[in-house]
């Protein structure tokens, strides 16, 4: 059960390799780039705002991720169970922890790659104005951390089902719950509850956390929140793996 960097790296490499074995990965990244562009220009009014920042771009990331991240994560475990390769993977001397982390890292790196490829947005805003690059960098880091939290939830859902589509849907649902917990409409329905509880529910939301980051405020508490989400859901992934073993 101990963490071994070498094993984790081997698992990650293999998983990345399988992502890029088919053209789906390229289509996926292309879709992500096009949609993130469409969202920022048409829905976010990137030009009309006349501000030299990327808030129009980052504000839509939680909604984009709601569908893109489950799609990346659904293939982490469900197909292994479907094809029976999980029996191979789990009887190699890899260790569950290393397998869980290695697979997750592959998905996270893949998401990071898609995110890095949105750099023309940065170039555009730098060409048009004089943006605060620190704020933009913070936005990218925050966005990537949020992607990791989505993927960790997806990893856990993927281990629960043999069917990728089921894994996808459950991931969307759980991620959605974690998003809307910060929306005023949801929080208003808790008006009867003490303020501390409302704060706690709002604090669980990706939206609340990401808002601050997108505005360029990299608070240590928000960073801790995203890392804690990843750790928690990866731990659940391992618990589910262990349960499958003892079932």
């Amino acid at each position: 059960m101990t963490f071994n960097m070498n094993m984790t790296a081997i698992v990650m490499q293999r998983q990345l390799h399988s992502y890029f074995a088919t053209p789906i990965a390229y289509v996926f990244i292309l879709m992500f780039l096009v949609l993130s562009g469409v969202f920022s220009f048409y829905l976010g009014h990137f030009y009309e705002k006349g501000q030299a920042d990327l808030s129009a771009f980052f504000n839509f990331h939680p909604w984009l991720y709601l569908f893109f991240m489950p799609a990346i994560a659904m293939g982490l475990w469900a197909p292994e169970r479907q094809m029976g390769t999980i029996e191979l993977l789990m009887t190699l001397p890899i260790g569950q922890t290393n397998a869980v982390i290695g697979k997750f890292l592959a998905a996270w790196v893949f998401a990071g790659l898609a995110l890095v490829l949105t750099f023309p947005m940065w170039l555009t805003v730098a060409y048009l104005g004089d943006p605060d690059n620190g704020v933009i960098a913070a936005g990218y880091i925050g966005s990537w951390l949020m992607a990791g939290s989505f993927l960790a939830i997806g990893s856990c859902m993927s281990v629960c089902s043999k069917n990728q589509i089921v894994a996808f849907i459950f991931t969307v649902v759980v991620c959605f719950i974690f998003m809307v917990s910060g929306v005023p409409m949801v929080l208003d329905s808790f008006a009867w509850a003490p303020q501390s509880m409302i704060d706690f529910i709002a604090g669980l939301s990706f939206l609340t956390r990401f808002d601050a980051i997108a505005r360029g405020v990299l608070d240590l508490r928000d960073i801790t929140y995203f890392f804690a989400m990843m750790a928690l859901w990866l731990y659940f992934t391992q618990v589910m793996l262990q349960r499958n073993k003892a079932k």
Partner: protein
Amino acid sequence: MIRVQNLTKRFDQFTAVNNLSFDVSPGEVLGFLGPNGAGKSTTMKMITGFIEPSDGMVSVCDINVSQNPQAVQAIMGYLPEGAPAYGEMTVMAFLEFIAKVRGLTGDDRQQRLAKVIEQVELEPVLDKPIDTLSKGFARRVGLAQAIIHDPKVLILDEPTDGLDPNQKHQVRELIKGLAKDKIVIISTHILEEVSAVCSRALIISEGKLLLDGKPDELERQSRHHNAICLQLADEHTDVQQQLGAIAHIESVECVAELEDRTFMLFPQDGQMLLPEVVRWLDDKQWAVENIHLEKGRLDDVFRQVTRAQTV
């Protein structure tokens, strides 16, 4: 040494493996025999640490599998049922992945890969994705994967399933070659395989151990053991009754597909009949086309034991 003690696996109401105990020592090739669903694969999955037993324990080279699965898996090679592999990878990329996980590095890795590729003859398909391979090649990739690190313990679930007779022969030779000072467990429902490669066989049915012995010991329990198959050159009347009168003959059966001239003579308590029968035929002056002694048939024993279980 593998030690299996009171191993039990229950899935909800169903007991797949029921209080199974046995030991295997280095140098032994143990064959798991049993009908489909007998618990062979489930037992292997517990030995390799893929699933947890409900009860009992398995230790391999004195390491408890439940407590330290990784240490056991490091000295073990395993071919799971159906030889699963990552279909999108090429054979070479897949074997390199396994070699890395097995901790093989540098020249050592290259040498082991070359050796294994030669042993199971994968040269022609190295650059092909595993998904595109025939069943025979896919199975051999699974075998290569299991033996790449020259493991002390080899667990093979139906290693020759889907292979043609030549490939079967080749894989059996390979297993026999590997078996020296190793522990090998194979599961099969091909009975000839047991006589061909195994030094010991376990017959399992409904999760219980029914018989444990060397293949020839098992054969001896067959009603065909020391039976005589006799093919006469000419037809005679009442042959069956006449043959039945010879001393120590329990019963005589006509082997239908070979007309009315071929008979199986079953002895009482496995006694040697041949001298008696030859003398008798000599007296009668009957011409014989073919006569041979049966060693015993494993499938007899298999059916006898496993049927008795279900009835």
